[in-house]
């Protein structure tokens, strides 16, 4: 398999430069939103809430809020990253270069995942200002965050190729990802839901992601960590396969 590291790095660097150029939109804006969540749900309301599974409520919501931002931002970043060149016509350069799917993904998705990690670090730092928490399995948390960020960056990449308007670009993160994350146990434990809602909630794949991240933080989860990891890896694999097919067929990329 061919892989040109220089090409991948060129794409990666440009995408990172784009993020820093629009730092307010890509970093400060989600940090501000998440801070507001921590102020309202973590400090004000959280102080009056019972601990969940032995974890103080303010700390309990950190993994869910982190997931909420991570999914939205990595998906949007990656989708914009590929949609904008298609929209402005600058994609001609990528298509005419000796660059295949591997370099393209390493560049675009790698940058989106990096931005996700930077964002996660900043959010965790911000959370520290409002609530006390400890991370039980820091290495697992880092790997899991990277895995989720990469998966949803790949998903965003597919979205950016599929979308043929700005409206479509925003529809999935806004109408599907955000509601599913809210309903996926961000602010509560699925186990506390009455039947049959606890079972129905498990049909929401985001619930597995939130639960997996929560396990890495506090050692407690709604579903086994292996299931969460397996699901994330499966999602990542499906996204990679779809993107490889898109590049092979040239769907929405080459006329």
């Amino acid at each position: 398999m061919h892989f040109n590291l220089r090409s991948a790095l060129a794409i990666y660097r440009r995408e990172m430069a784009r993020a820093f150029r629009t730092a307010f939109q890509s970093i400060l804006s989600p940090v501000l939103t998440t801070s507001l969540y921590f102020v309202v749900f973590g400090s004000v309301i959280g102080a009056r809430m019972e601990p969940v599974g032995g974890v103080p409520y303010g700390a309990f919501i950190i993994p869910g809020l982190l997931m909420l931002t991570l999914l939205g931002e990595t998906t949007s970043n990656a989708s914009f990253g590929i949609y904008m060149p298609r929209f402005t016509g600058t994609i001609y350069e990528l298509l005419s270069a000796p660059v295949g799917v591997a370099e393209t993904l390493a560049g675009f998705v790698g940058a989106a995942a990096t931005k996700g990690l930077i964002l996660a670090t900043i959010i965790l730092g911000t959370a520290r200002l409002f609530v006390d928490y400890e991370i039980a399995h820091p290495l697992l948390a880092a790997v899991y965050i990277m895995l989720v960020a990469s998966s949803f960056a790949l998903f965003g990449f597919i979205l950016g190729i599929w979308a043929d308007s700005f409206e479509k670009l925003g529809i999935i993160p806004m109408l599907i990802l955000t509601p599913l994350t809210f309903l996926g146990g961000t602010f509560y434990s699925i186990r506390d839901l009455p039947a049959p809602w606890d079972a129905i909630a498990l049909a929401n794949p985001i619930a597995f992601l939130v639960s997996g991240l929560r396990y890495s933080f506090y050692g407690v989860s709604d579903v086994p960590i292996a299931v969460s990891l397996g699901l994330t890896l499966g999602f990542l694999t499906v996204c990679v396969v779809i993107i490889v097919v898109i590049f092979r067929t040239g769907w929405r990329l080459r006329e």
Partner: protein
Amino acid sequence: MHEPILSIRGLTKTYTNGPRALDSVDLDIKPGEIFALLGPNGAGKTTLIGAVCGLVRPTGGTITAFGQDLSKDWRKARARIGLVPQELATDMFETVWRAVTYSRGLFGKASDPVMIEHILRSLSLWDKRDAQIRALSGGMKRRVLIAKALAHEPELLFLDEPTAGVDVELRKDMWQQIAALKERGVTIILTTHYIEEAEEMADRVGIIQAGRIRMVDEKRAMMERLGTTEAVIDLAAPLAALPEALAGFALELSQGGTRLTYRGGNGEGKGRAEVAQLAQALTRAGIGFTSLDIHDSSLEDIFVGLLGEKQGEAA
């Protein structure tokens, strides 16, 4: 005879629910030449370039560049091909330096600030290296696109309407840049609406219409074969008929015997020489004339004439 640097055989492209943009195109490009592809809007020029550069998926046919089949060894070949697109498509918020550096990296070349500086200086962009592209004039933006296409030192360069929307002065400046690239051994394929451009720069000319290559020839040979000289001579006194002394010239008498029209030559000077001989013959025969107007056909006349003929055949 050199092997062609680019060889296209039976290239066909039919868009979904659309017309056949390319119809069995055969074309060979020689190393080191400037080849001008002329054709009206929608003739298939951009589709042809897109097919070679990987922007368009051909429906059929083969493309071989540098001896490599582009459907198989596209990586190696594409690393040696550059493209300047018709549209001013580039990240407008990037600086000139970063945009050009990115292009070099994207094509897998190691960073080379000296090379980038050389390219920017040669295109008079050095002073603008830290400027955002959106702040540049249209002509400068087009130079940035050329700089980006040159950043990986391509051996085969496609210029799709390189001077569209550029003022006359800048266009001539661009011609100099293209000539300099040829000097460096770069093979150039350009599409243009400005026949003057092809006439000025091209070694060979191809005419494409409705997705088919109608003619490919050396520019000089095309001018020689299809070019003519027309001379209109207004006589001092009317002639009843063409005198014997003018029998050897391709002449037509009109306007009540007061106008002689000569059509002949080969577009490469032969016609003008014959008109000079005609003027001497008129003087020797004592036929006075009040004015003499000479017009050599240009590549544009040939192009328009050819397309007119083909459209006539098709009708």
